[in-house]
């Protein structure tokens, strides 16, 4: 990026006396200096997601003096976010994440212009939103948005500072930089839904997004300043348990569908479809599923329903519906504990794992088994508000 390091230099940027005092520790660094600080002020960065990765990104990019920070998010701060999303505070629970993000950024650095996009990034709005920024930092939590952000960045020729986390492990790289690879060069296709657990299901060490998001912030600043060796063509792997990092070589794939020599994708596609996620059917349309309200009604009528809990024992300890506990991974070898003639409702935290369990049991010939839609979360939300949530 050294050759493009000057793209954010603007002659109309000036630093006030307050800013010169504020950024003094940058200004005395030869690699930053007054010129570098003005590049940071002239630069604009879009954060996709104001969650675990977006939090340290927003905090450090604001503190560093990035001139304009855009944030795309549509979520509301939930108590379960606070373990890692340090952009938001306990008093923000229930507020839109964008509002608490803007307030926090301005309390750190009132010089930063904040632009908020209260929307779900999609194929119709992505090019318009991303197009207004110099760089994109990807802190999303799902595959459709990852591929959408990647493809939009490739089409717009914007560097995409990528970070991803799972439990104790993270990945960081810089995609879509001139001559470098993109996310599709690394992974041409997403995994089918359900095969890879999400953080909501698999859990995540709260500190991990802090580390990975901070590395993304460092890469973003380096790209803007045009200094050092950014993670272009390199995938950094971080494991918090062993405290080891590894680095893998990434190459631009000449056969890549979007950035290859004969790219087949020339505009944004339907990413939900690409990731195999069918449009959600109405809850009652699905013969394999039952809503929390319908289950409650069944139980209230005194109907005999066998409840199967496919979560992990430590989740069961937090809250349960009194179901028989067989973690999803143990189900194949413990299936003999179930009676296929019995009306069975399977539940997990949010309905993903139990959905897989229902599919598995159906394949074995179970006819009377249904998935509790939205899992124990939905039960806690609509039936039993006193139930602990996690």
């Amino acid at each position, binding site marked *: 990026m050294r050759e493009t390091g000057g793209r954010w230099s603007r002659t109309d940027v000036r630093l006030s006396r307050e800013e010169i005092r504020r950024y003094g520790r940058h200004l005395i660094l030869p690699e930053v200096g007054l010129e570098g600080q003005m590049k940071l002020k002239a630069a604009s960065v879009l954060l*996709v*997601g*104001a*969650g*675990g*990765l*977006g939090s340290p990104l927003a905090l450090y990019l604001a503190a560093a003096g990035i001139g304009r920070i855009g944030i795309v*998010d549509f*979520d509301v701060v939930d108590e379960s976010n606070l373990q890692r999303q340090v952009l938001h505070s306990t008093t923000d629970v229930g507020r839109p994440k964008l509002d608490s993000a803007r307030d926090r950024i301005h309390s750190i650095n009132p010089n930063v212009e904040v632009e908020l996009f209260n929307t779900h990034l999609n194929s119709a709005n992505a090019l318009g939103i991303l197009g207004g920024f110099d760089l994109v930092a*990807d*802190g*999303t*939590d*799902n*595959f459709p948005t*990852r591929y959408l952000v990647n493809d939009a960045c490739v089409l717009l020729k914007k560097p995409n500072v990528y*970070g*991803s*986390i*799972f*439990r*104790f*492990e993270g*990945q960081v790289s810089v995609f879509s930089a001139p001559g470098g690879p993109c996310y599709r060069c*690394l*992974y*041409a*296709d*997403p*995994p089918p839904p359900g*095969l*890879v*657990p*999400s*953080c*909501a299901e*698999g859990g*995540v060490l709260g500190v991990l*997004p802090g580390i990975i998001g901070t590395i993304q912030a460092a890469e973003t600043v380096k790209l803007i300043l045009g200094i050092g060796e950014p993670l272009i063509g390199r*995938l950094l*792997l971080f*494991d918090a*348990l*062993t405290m080891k990092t*590894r*680095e*893998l*070589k*990434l*190459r631009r*794939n000449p056969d890549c569908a979007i950035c290859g020599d004969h790219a087949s994708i020339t505009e944004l596609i339907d990413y939900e479809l690409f990731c195999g996620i069918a449009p959600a059917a109405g809850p009652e349309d699905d013969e394999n599923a039952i809503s929390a309200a319908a289950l409650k009604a069944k139980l209230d009528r005194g109907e005999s329903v066998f409840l199967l809990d496919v979560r992990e024992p430590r989740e069961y300890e937090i809250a349960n519906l009194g179901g028989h506990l067989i973690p999803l*991974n143990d189900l*194949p070898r413990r299936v003999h504990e179930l009676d296929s003639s019995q009306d069975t409702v399977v539940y997990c935290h949010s309905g993903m794992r139990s959905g897989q369990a229902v599919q598995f049991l159906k394949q074995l010939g179970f006819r009377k088994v249904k998935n509790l839609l939205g899992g124990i979360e939905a039960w806690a939300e609509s039936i039993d508000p006193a139930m602990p949530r996690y």
Partner: protein
Amino acid sequence: MAIRILIPTPLRAYTEKKESVLLEGNTVGELLRGLTATYAPLKKHLFDDTGSLRNFVNVYVNDEDIRYLQKEQTQVSEKDTVSIVPSIAGGRS
């Protein structure tokens, strides 16, 4: 001649929580098939129904992607480390 295969967090559920597994083999393909023979539930996460390595799972010998070496025929020796690196999505939630 045993070669170390590093197992990523999402797949450790299928390898008795092991972070790495030592296996004998001359090529990456032999090692991966040995791995899925030892840990059968891992198979559907690494290979599709036709037996090809899945597109969202990359395999590296040291820091080099086997797609740019000799793919599953890539030769390995004792000093090499094989890494399985699947795509992970987390961040925002």
